[in-house]
């Protein structure tokens, strides 16, 4: 019964109270915050990392860092927003590190960052035939995933926060440690690159429409 009561109670305890209790030395109170916000942080982490393994590592590290910095939080904002930002910052660092590692390896034949070495014709050829619509959509998903990976860490963060999580430009700017104008430009650049990477699919779709196969 104690367990049941505590889980019911946990659901009613506001974040600010759980933070206060954690700071007072009640480590178990932090469990409430972890359990409450993990899913949301995971969604961000997955979109930033593109795979579950990295996403889970980002989530764990974000909550560990948040615990260590909890005194700095001191009720200044919503805990969910705060830990989300910590996760975003950590995810950017990881992405940057990965870019550095990748560039050191200099893998031959890998797509360039702006996607300019994609063969649009091949994409259109794949796109038009009617029985392959399903395959095309999975190709589109793969292309989008690749295009997201090719974004710079800042661009990926900006587009994930802006589009998927509806964050305000000011919040993105705070995460990127840039001005709001720069943050806005980063979002624009990200959309522009994605649009260019997906252009062949859009053209294929228009062609398919014109051919009456879609």
């Amino acid at each position, binding site marked *: 019964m104690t367990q049941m009561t505590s889980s019911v109670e946990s659901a009613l305890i506001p974040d600010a109270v759980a933070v206060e209790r954690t700071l007072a030395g009640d480590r178990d109170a932090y469990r409430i915050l972890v359990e409450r916000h993990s899913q949301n942080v995971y969604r961000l982490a997955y979109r930033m990392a593109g795979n579950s393994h990295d996403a889970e590592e980002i989530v764990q590290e974000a909550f560990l860092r948040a615990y260590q910095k909890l005194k700095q939080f001191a009720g200044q904002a919503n805990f969910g927003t705060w830990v989300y930002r910590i996760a975003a910052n950590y995810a950017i660092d990881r992405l940057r590190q990965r870019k550095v590692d990748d560039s050191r390896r200099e893998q031959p034949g890998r797509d360039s960052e702006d996607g300019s070495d994609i063969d649009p014709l091949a994409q259109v050829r794949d796109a038009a035939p009617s029985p392959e619509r399903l395959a095309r959509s999975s190709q589109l998903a793969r292309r*989008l995933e690749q295009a997201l990976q090719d974004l710079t860490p800042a661009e990926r963060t900006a587009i994930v926060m802006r589009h998927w999580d509806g964050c305000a430009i000011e919040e993105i700017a705070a995460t990127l440690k840039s001005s709001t104008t720069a943050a806005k430009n980063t979002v624009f650049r990200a959309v522009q690159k994605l*649009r260019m990477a997906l252009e062949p699919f859009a053209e294929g779709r228009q062609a398919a429409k014109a051919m009456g196969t879609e």
Partner: protein
Amino acid sequence: MEEQLIAFHDGERTDRERVSAHLASCPECRAALEKIEAVFAAMDAMPVPDPGENYGQRVWAQISSRLPERQPRWWESFFAPRRLVSVGAFAAIVAAFLLGRLVPPEPGPGNDTKIDTAQVRERILVVAVGDHLSKSEMFLVELSNAQPNPSSGTLVNIAATQRRAEDLLEENRLYRQTALQEGDQVTASTLDELERVLLDIANSPDEVTPARFESMQQRLASRGILFKVRVIQQGLRERTKLQQKPAQKPMQQNISRRNTQEGNKA
């Protein structure tokens, strides 16, 4: 123009009408906007795998052992200004401890020193905790029944209520820790719940909207904390009566069991 279209799609308010008017007359820009929309549609279609309902618990299991202990140094916690209000509670606990040590055992059949010591300590604590619970009950009743005056402005000032909550909070922490040390899980558990309620109030802004004030009252009601406090008070009263009768079975167990049963009924 692409930047403006992205901003337009993003819901940017500046120049919205102008861009809208332009789109109506420019098929090229409409096509460009469609492409931008296609990017966002593709993004929306990207799934995020569900990590599972118990994901939060899993994360906790993975990180909890890596969290360092966060223990305030005892002199910091004792001499912190807010702690000073609970000197009375602290004094009661010290008195219970010292009296338990110093009061000599009464001679009599079946009485040994250990029982006497435990009884004297417990009696003092029971009175002190009972007094704390009475004050808490009064506070909760007043808060539950308070009706914000709509003519006094749009916000309700709860600064005085918060100060009372803070005072009770400090006492409550000491009594909860003592109850835990004494092995009285039922009292400790109710004091723990009371502490959360008091923290909730103490941490609210000084001024709240009437709607938020009402939601605070609703939270109090939904937690049933007033009822739980009364149950514990009743238990303490019975414990006091039992203490006056020597050679009873261990009282704590009886009371704990009774309270658990009453709690289950609740």
